[in-house]
């Protein structure tokens, strides 16, 4: 405990460092979770109820960083955005982005169906459900593409891979919003 606290006067510089791992996109989640628990047990402020004010402050700062890191890194989308951001590639805001060209027609149809449902036309549920299924399949495809890019980047952290990743993340976020809207309409 002493070494752990006194060896570290400053906080880890990034979320990966908190876990003591290099920047990695294709993370082993169960392993990350195991580390999260181990670190929590070590550093949680509750463990320092009788410590000095400085130690309590460190425990608080470290644990909040640990929790923030775990929240971001356990979610592949958030994790990838975090890495992009650290490389100066701000992910675009999907709301401002036009829909990907190949989805234009789909989105148009979905919006019509959503509008019909809002007007009280229950038969619009059918097309919405079909659209939802297509979006879910698309999302799944993007997820495996994303995983492939993760692995490629981990093997060779090239800027070009990051740019491809950014484009993919934007598309995925757009589809995610469609899925959410369709699910909301159906629920």
């Amino acid at each position, binding site marked *: 405990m002493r070494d752990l606290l006194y060896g570290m006067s400053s906080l880890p510089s990034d979320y990966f460092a908190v876990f003591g791992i290099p920047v990695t996109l294709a993370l082993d989640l169960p392993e990350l979770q195991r580390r999260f*628990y181990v670190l929590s047990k070590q550093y*949680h402020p*509750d463990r320092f*109820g*009788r410590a000095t004010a400085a130690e309590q402050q460190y425990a*608080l700062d470290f644990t*909040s960083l640990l*929790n*923030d890191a775990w929240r971001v890194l356990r979610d592949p989308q958030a994790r990838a955005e975090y890495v992009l951001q650290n490389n100066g590639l701000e992910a675009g805001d999907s709301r401002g982005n036009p829909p990907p060209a190949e989805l234009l027609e789909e989105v148009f149809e979905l919006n019509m169906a959503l509008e019909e449902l809002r007007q009280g036309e229950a038969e619009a549920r059918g097309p919405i459900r079909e659209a939802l299924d297509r979006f879910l399949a698309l999302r799944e495809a993007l997820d495996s593409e994303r995983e492939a890019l993760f692995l490629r980047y981990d093997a060779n952290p090239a800027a070009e891979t990051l740019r491809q990743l950014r484009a993919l993340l934007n598309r995925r976020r757009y589809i995610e919003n469609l899925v959410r809207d369709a699910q909301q309409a159906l629920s």
Partner: protein
Amino acid sequence: MSVFQIDFGSPDSGQESAPPRVVGIDLGTTNSLVAFLDLTAPKVILGPDGAALVPSVVSFPAGAEPVVGAAAQQALLADPANTVYSAKRLMGRGAADVAGELALLPFPVAPGSESVIRLAVGGREVTPPEVGAYILRQLKQNAEAFLGEPVTQAVITVPAYFDDAQRQATKDAGRIAGLEVLRLVNEPTAAALAYGLDKRQNGTIAVYDFGGGTFDVSILKLQEGLFEVLATHGDTHLGGDDIDNLLLRVALEDIASEWGADLSGNHEALQRLRRAIIDAKHELSTRPVTTITFDDGGREYRRQLPREVFDQLITPIIERTLASCRSCLGDAGLQPAAIDEVVLVGGSTRIPLVRQAVRALFEAEPHTELNPDEVVALGAAVQAGILAGTVEDHLLLDVTPLSLGIETMGGVVSKLILRNSTIPASATEQFTTAVDGQRNVLIHVLQGERELAKDCRSLARFDLKDLDPVMAGMARIEVRFLIDANGILRVSAKDLRTGKEQAVEIKPSYGLTDEQVEAMILESFDKAEEDFKERQVRETRVEADRILAAVEKAKQDEAWFALPPAERAAIDLAINELLLSYHGDDYVLIQQKMEALDHASRGLAEAMMNSAVRGALKGTKIE
């Protein structure tokens, strides 16, 4: 942990062997109690009346000291205008938040209650944290009497769904009572801790806590001593009180039509009617039918209330708790079937319909092995043990119940920390200036899930002051928002251009200022310390009287005259010294002198025993 303690010591351990004990307190809407960790098992502490539960009622008789607990509950009937109950529902609130509620309360609210409610009782004004402090002080005294040592540190529980202001108000109550609040723990989480400690199980559990004033539900994952809250939901204004109010309205309508009398302005009658209703409600938990009986000025009101009718009446209230449970499941990303166990907490879970509804929703038989009145305090005591380092194999990872955000252009809220984030949690945000030479930036922080600031709960306004005057957009102030392990927000700011700490002035939207709390403490904290000492002195003197009387009596015995003169002189000296210390207020010294006398007179006591035995042998035959 122990190695750590030896290395660095704790600030107040000094040469005393054991660090001060930390107690766990459930400061409830209806009832409060205190528990401590005895070796490894948590135990509730009984008050002088032999009861663990202290009713959360404080009476402020004009011109006299406030009365707390069961005695105050009596005053609820005799002196309703000066007797405060359910003050927890007013914690961290302004008059506008609880307008509907205040109309039902028998005590008037003083002007200037926008950000802190001021109750006009007993010819003075008291705030909800002060009311809480009186209850806490009673619990503190009970614990001190029970443990025989001063108690200065506590873990206090709060409803999981309490917002920042409500938590802060609870902490203030502790400070006012002379207690250092080491941690605020969420009530359902505390309950889980009490259960988990018992069973050392792994799995996913739901805690359904339905008390007098608040409702909470939390879903936790338990594994190897780690209690990880996945999601929490609730309503800080939903409890048995609402059921009482519902029945009260029905009864008032009945009475209005039967007697042609409106009782709603008659606080004394209202309190008695409320009492009758609560008694009937409790009875319905074990019987199929009850009768509400009430008389006033020779007239009698009797109403039969079968359980089916009661169930129908309260269904909307229970449905609200179920909706919370469903949201909580959704936030945890779980189906009801994923819940392995359900734990019931709070007095209102004794209602059969509640049990039935919970069983049906979670598809699990709810646990009720531990007393639902005590389980929260027991868990608080476990958490106290964790903080004190005596419980090393358990740890709580709790979450913040509400999203935290800041107001941006157009009154829209930008979320910084989402609800159900594990705490402590933080977020940083950069701020800049909009006009040349601007010297300060105002940040409005809110809690809640809605999009617009006006629909969220205002937490505070933070003023970044004395900025260097620079061109518009050139300032770079980084503000860090941190929700600590108590669920309370802390804010710090840094000027990124200079790297210097930036001053932040905090203007909380609700609650007392530090100075106000300080002023309240000085009064009652000093007194509390005095009280403790005074009690100790008084009790020690009673004991000294007893010993002195015994020794004086012994001096009439023949054994006294048989003692060697030196021993008699030693006893007389010890008596004198005890008498000298007797009128001082150093109870430790009195105790020492008592022990010295006890020691000096040991020979005398033995001699007397022997002569008594001889006397007995002389007078009786032994078979």
